């Protein structure tokens, strides 16, 4: 019975993440359009697109690795979601939050991209391989400041678990973004790369690489990729809110906090042109790295 309730809770979490992530995606499209002085699609456009993709059937495939790619991607998004606390008090969304820590999460998060990279590789489309190499290179770039920020928090509060960091914030009453400001700055700069909006949209690269994995996958595959992306965006935002902004006691607070945070990469992206790959890597090894170091020094001293 307990197992059944747990599974039910997990499904509820996935549905929540899906709905919130998709809505955010739609709103971002609207905002981008307004900034560019277009009318833009309605906020629920993403749901229409998802439904359309889901109902389409697929005619061709390039082999079994390609078919497994989106499933790998989904594993990463959904299982990561299981380990990130959605609300402070757990409740329906507790899932597996006490079974893993931050370092585990860091590694779990790359699982999907590697699987998808393999799936994209089997299509034989040269653009997908180019996208993958860019993505992996950029990942090495932003992971360093991101890890530095996390390490700074870990040594400052002597815990590596997300729930541990949330408890610290509840006990002291201050958010970690104020008590460890440099770590927060480094993490937010790393977040720009994590969300892959401009100027770090070198992976999908709308103008050159558009014919990569997206054009080789259709129907349900594209639907899976799309919903996985939405869920993953929600997971990452929730993780940031949990770590730096004191978590959320109910869903409304969660939505407000995540949306505010989400606007940082989105708004920065709308007004920026795109970097080249090595420029992007060097960007992350500049100021973000400096703030990461500062965060560690700050954590060691205090």
């Amino acid at each position, binding site marked *: 019975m307990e197992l059944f309730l747990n599974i039910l809770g997990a499904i509820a979490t996935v549905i929540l993440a899906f709905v919130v992530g998709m809505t955010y995606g739609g709103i971002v499209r609207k905002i981008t359009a307004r900034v560019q002085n277009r009318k833009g699609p309605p906020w629920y456009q993403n749901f229409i697109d998802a439904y359309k993709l889901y109902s389409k059937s697929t005619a061709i495939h390039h082999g079994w690795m390609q078919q497994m790619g989106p499933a790998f991607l989904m594993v990463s998004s959904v299982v990561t979601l299981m380990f990130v606390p959605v609300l402070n008090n757990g409740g329906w969304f507790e899932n*597996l939050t006490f*079974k893993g820590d931050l370092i585990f999460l860091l590694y779990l998060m790359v699982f999907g991209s590697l699987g998808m990279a393999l799936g994209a590789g089997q299509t034989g489309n040269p653009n997908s*391989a180019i996208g993958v190499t*860019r993505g*992996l290179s950029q*990942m*090495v770039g932003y992971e360093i400041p991101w890890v530095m920020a996390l390490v700074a928090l870990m040594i400052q509060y002597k815990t590596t678990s997300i729930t541990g960091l949330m408890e610290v914030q509840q006990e002291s009453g201050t958010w970690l973004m104020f008590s460890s400001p440099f770590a927060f700055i480094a993490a937010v700069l790393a977040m720009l790369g994590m969300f892959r909006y401009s100027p770090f949209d070198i992976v999908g690269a709308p103008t050159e690489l558009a014919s990569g994995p997206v054009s*080789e996958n259709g129907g349900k595959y594209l639907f899976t990729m799309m919903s996985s992306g939405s869920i993953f965006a929600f997971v990452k935002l929730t993780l940031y809110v949990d770590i730096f902004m004191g978590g959320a006691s109910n869903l409304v607070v969660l939505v407000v906090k995540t949306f505010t945070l989400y606007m940082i990469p989105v708004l920065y992206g709308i007004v920026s042109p795109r970097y080249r790959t090595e420029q992007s890597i*060097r960007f992350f090894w500049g100021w973000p790295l400096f703030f990461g170091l500062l965060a560690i020094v700050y954590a060691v001293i205090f």
Partner: protein
Amino acid sequence: MNTIILIFIIFLAGAILTFLAGNIKGLLKEVLFLASIIVPVVMFFAGVKAGDSFDFHMAGFAFQWEITPLSYLFALIVTGLGVMAAIYAAVSAMQGTKSLGLFYFNFILSIMSMLGILFSRDLVSFFIFWEIMTWSSYLMVVYQGKDVQKVGIKYFIFSAVGAYSMLMAIVMVYSLTGSMMIDKMVQEAYPGFAFNMQVIIPILFLIGFGVKSAMMPLHVWAPGAYSHSPMAFTSVFSGALSKMGIYGMVIVMASMVAYVPEEHWFRIVIAWLGGITAVGGTLWAIAQDDAKKLLAYSSVAQLGYIIVGVGIGTPLAMLAALFMAVMHALFKGTLFMAVGAIEKQTGTSNFTEVTGLIRKMPWTFLASLMGIIALAGIPPLGGFIGKWMLYESLIGSDHYLLVIVIFFSSTAAFLYSYKFLFGFFLGQEEKEWEHVKEAPALMVVPMIILAAGTFLLGTFPGLIMKPISAGLEQLGYGATQGKYWEMSMLFNEWGDQVVLQPILYAIIAVFVFFLVFLLLKNRKNTRYVSTKDISSSGEVPKEHENLTFIQNFFQPFLRAVEPLMKRQIDWYYNGFGKGMEALFDFTRRFYTGNGQTYALYAIIFVVILLLLKTSLFGI
């Protein structure tokens, strides 16, 4: 008769018999070879347990062989990987090569010498077995005979440097204590040594072990030697033989260095050397276009992680290092075997030449995929456990910058991981490779078994943690079970945990659900189209066009890290070598080969003697 000595007799007799049978046609030599590996290993598992020993006297020295818990752990690596590699090598992998007898002979001898190193409790037999190991592996490096001159000499020179510094340490120990027993030296005599001896002896030992475990700056032999040996042996070379260096290092760090007053300084130097090794190995692996070279550099990097763990030396770091040693044997064994299989089936191991093998060699792909996932440290496979423990131990023991360095290296490892899988198996399928078939079953099965090992240990690390923990207790660490690990749980110093079973089940459940969701109707309705049937920028590529992107695969990344790769220690060694060559060349000029010149030298010598006789001899 004692089982230990019987094992060595069978190894030795088997090696000689197999060598003699080398030229006989038929399967006699293969049968002999497999028997002389598998029989002693079975005897080892059936008849030997930790604590067994064997003593004898010879040439005035007391020899003592004993199986300690730590050596039992490393013996598990050697025997397990040895048997798999032997099955892989016999019959299939080495088919059609010349002088097979020599290969089998060296193979058996190197397995024997590794077990010998692990069992020796006195320094004389330790050194003898160490030299047998170096010699047999050297003969393997030069075995294939293709431009091996430089590679072989490099390996040999570095091994010799290591061996001599070890020999020097042994002689010093003997002159100070009058005994060759390792336990006696470490536990009784060592704390009483003068301070300079306490520092010099471990440094000399560490040079010896550092060479074998390819530690910066003694690693330059490794990429060449690993990539030039036959792949069937390289899996043992990189997986087990390099671990002998780690074994020695563990003993030195845990016993001797613990007594040195400036212990902290010593440990930090070793740990940072490990960290630099990891970063350098990873970056150079990314730049390689040849799979063997890529894996060789990656081995250097992986051993760097292990050295970091050994260098830090906290219980959790030691657990991490030893677990990674086991794991590295499993996944690097798998990967080198996979490269061997591909090389045998296609004739090349270069990414730029062969692409799109996934549908032709699916089992090799599966084994490589699991090996790569373990290498990259992605859960739920075993590589993750070692990485996790290493990070936690570094964070918990205040090595903040080192943890960033290690993290950089292991994130960059994703790059070459993907290059390996993409280069061989993915990309566009070529007409040229249409004839390629899956490797023979005897080559595929060992790979799959080793890969399955990484999977099993990823969820139940307790299986191997038990012998590791026993080994650490022998070295004076307290009990670690329940504190840092359970059968399928991990803890760090602050009590944070990772519970592995729910992770595995969650991953499998979600994966299967979405696979079914994707394939339920699609599998029947879709048809396979070749990789030429794609849309690339609105155009469909022609039949003869190969659009696989593999040249300069990570060029933007390499451009970004260019400053880090400018200096290579190899250049300094080569410069030194060139200088020495010039010196020797100058000396050679005296030997003109002309009798008259030599007569002149003799006369000049006599004249000098006569002139200086009063000052020299006082006559």
